């Protein structure tokens, strides 16, 4: 395949790359989609929650044949200490829609299906190919080079090669991440018969639930754990900032084992069998550490462009939306026959007009604020659980004494003004 020329080369067959390739092929462009795994999905890891809207924009009526696990009807948030927990959740019959708001998926199965859709639209999918450099001419990107030395040319390269985007670094668009800009997630897929899942999680048929867990469960590290229901398996994982793993010297796989033993989780996974263990980077640095999104002849989408909204557990939907917008930018650039940085700058404008950059902008300071005030990760869960304990305990003391104890504890551990300050600074986390 020496010096073959395409309208566009997309690097990485994940949600961003397939969305981009598929959209361009549908518009009649000649597209190559390069994937370093032996098959699409081989290197990809996610929780995984799939949001319908952004996929529907790329594959209408996807739910008719996509490999979906469970339609999410309940979202739960648990705030945990070592031995206690406060549970908040939202469950609604309104979620029983088709398509549902979101579904759990097995990422590898989903990625294979998604890549097939792109191939059916005319995309040339080439698997088992690692791109390790870009080709430049007069400062603009004109193609890519593979580890085997093959050169492929294109009017535009779209980098969708994920959190470890080597080519955006080679293109000079991105420096290396800093440890505080990325989270490391580890996960296990645990086999459990579907009746047990439905009983333990109070689900019917193909309904599913998600559970996010904050507090002591991450042992003071910035991050959270999650437990998602698939048809016949559970996904249990935890993601924490890389600088926290560096600082605490906690081993990620041992952290996961401790989470399995937590009294709130142990019963839910009892008798399950681990099918797979995996790890992945999550580029959580937010808006302020995003690389430039384009240069002459090249666009960045998805994790490669750090499009993650960690406070809302979103990423693959931002990837799909940005992949589609990147494709639309290329389609318009082709009409003008102009692939300069100036022409491709339209991409940024499209992202600014969409939810992608609006959400990224709104949540830009959260991690930094939590980091400056790191103890809130453990103080609040502890305070909340202790207060709940006082509230519910019946031990012969008058209720007014218990209430006083709660107030006193809050004053001693945080102070009312400090609490107001904390909530003000973090209001975007829930907004």
């Amino acid at each position, binding site marked *: 395949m020496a010096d073959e020329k395409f309208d566009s080369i997309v690097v990485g067959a994940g949600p961003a790359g397939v969305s981009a390739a598929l959209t361009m092929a549908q518009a009649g462009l000649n597209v190559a989609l390069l994937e*370093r*795994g*032996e*098959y699409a*999905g*081989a*290197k*990809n*890891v*996610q929780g*995984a929650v799939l949001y319908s809207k952004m996929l529907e924009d790329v594959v209408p009526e996807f739910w008719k044949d996509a490999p979906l696990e469970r339609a999410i009807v309940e979202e739960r948030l648990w705030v945990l200490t070592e031995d206690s927990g406060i549970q908040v959740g939202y469950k609604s019959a309104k979620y029983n829609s088709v398509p549902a708001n979101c579904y759990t998926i*097995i*990422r*590898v*199965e989903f*990625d294979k299906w998604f890549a097939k859709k792109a191939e059916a639209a005319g995309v040339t999918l080439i*698997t*088992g*190919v*690692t791109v*390790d450099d870009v080709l430049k001419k007069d400062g603009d990107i004109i193609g890519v080079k*593979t*580890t*085997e030395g093959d050169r492929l040319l294109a009017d535009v390269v779209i980098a969708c090669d994920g*959190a*470890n985007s*080597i080519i955006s670094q080679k293109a000079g668009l991105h420096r*290396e*991440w*800093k*440890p505080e800009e*990325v989270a*490391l997630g*580890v996960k*296990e*897929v645990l086999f459990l018969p579907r009746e047990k899942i439905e009983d333990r999680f109070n689900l019917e048929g193909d309904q599913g639930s998600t559970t996010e867990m904050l507090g002591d469960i991450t042992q003071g590290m910035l991050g959270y754990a999650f437990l998602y229901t698939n048809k016949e398996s559970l996904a249990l994982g935890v993601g924490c900032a*890389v*600088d926290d*793993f*560096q600082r605490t*010297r*906690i*081993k*990620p*796989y041992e952290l996961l*084992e401790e989470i*399995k*033993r937590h009294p709130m989780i*142990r*019963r839910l*996974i*009892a*008798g399950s069998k*681990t*099918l*797979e*263990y*995996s*790890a992945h*980077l999550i580029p959580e640095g937010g808006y302020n550490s995003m690389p430039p999104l384009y240069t002459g002849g090249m666009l960045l989408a998805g994790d490669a462009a750090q499009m993650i909204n960690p406070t809302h557990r979103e990423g693959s939907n931002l990837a799909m939306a940005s992949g589609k917008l990147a494709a639309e930018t290329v389609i318009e650039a082709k009409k003008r026959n102009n692939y300069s940085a100036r022409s491709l700058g339209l991409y940024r404008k499209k992202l600014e007009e969409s939810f992608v950059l609006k959400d990224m902008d709104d949540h830009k300071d959260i991690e930094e604020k939590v980091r400056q005030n790191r103890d809130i990760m453990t103080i609040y869960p502890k305070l909340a659980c202790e207060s709940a304990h006082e509230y519910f305990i019946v031990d012969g003391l008058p209720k007014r004494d218990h209430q006083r104890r709660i107030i006193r504890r809050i004053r001693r551990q945080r102070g009312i003004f400090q609490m107001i300050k904390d909530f003000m600074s973090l209001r975007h986390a829930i907004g």
Partner: protein
Amino acid sequence: MAEEPKPMSLEDKLGLLTYKNDHQTHIKLLDANVCLKCPDKPCATGCPAGVYVWDEPQKKIVVSYENCIECGAARMLCPYNNIEWQPPRGGFGVSYKYG
């Protein structure tokens, strides 16, 4: 009372995975002397696949690149930017079945 789940070792976890091993490494330590002076060796604890192990008699970090599950965290875990991590060559490395 729920049965106490047996802790699962890292070896057991990695044993579930399918790899296609390359004869050449995709991970390089740029300067072995840097590791000698590194007090905490966060690569040895933070790597989710235990790829980096401090060998006390040899006084060096031994890299089992064939166990790598390709998260890429090592590059950021090393406080001295001493780990050069590239994705394995096309088709090599771990292949997830669930992901």
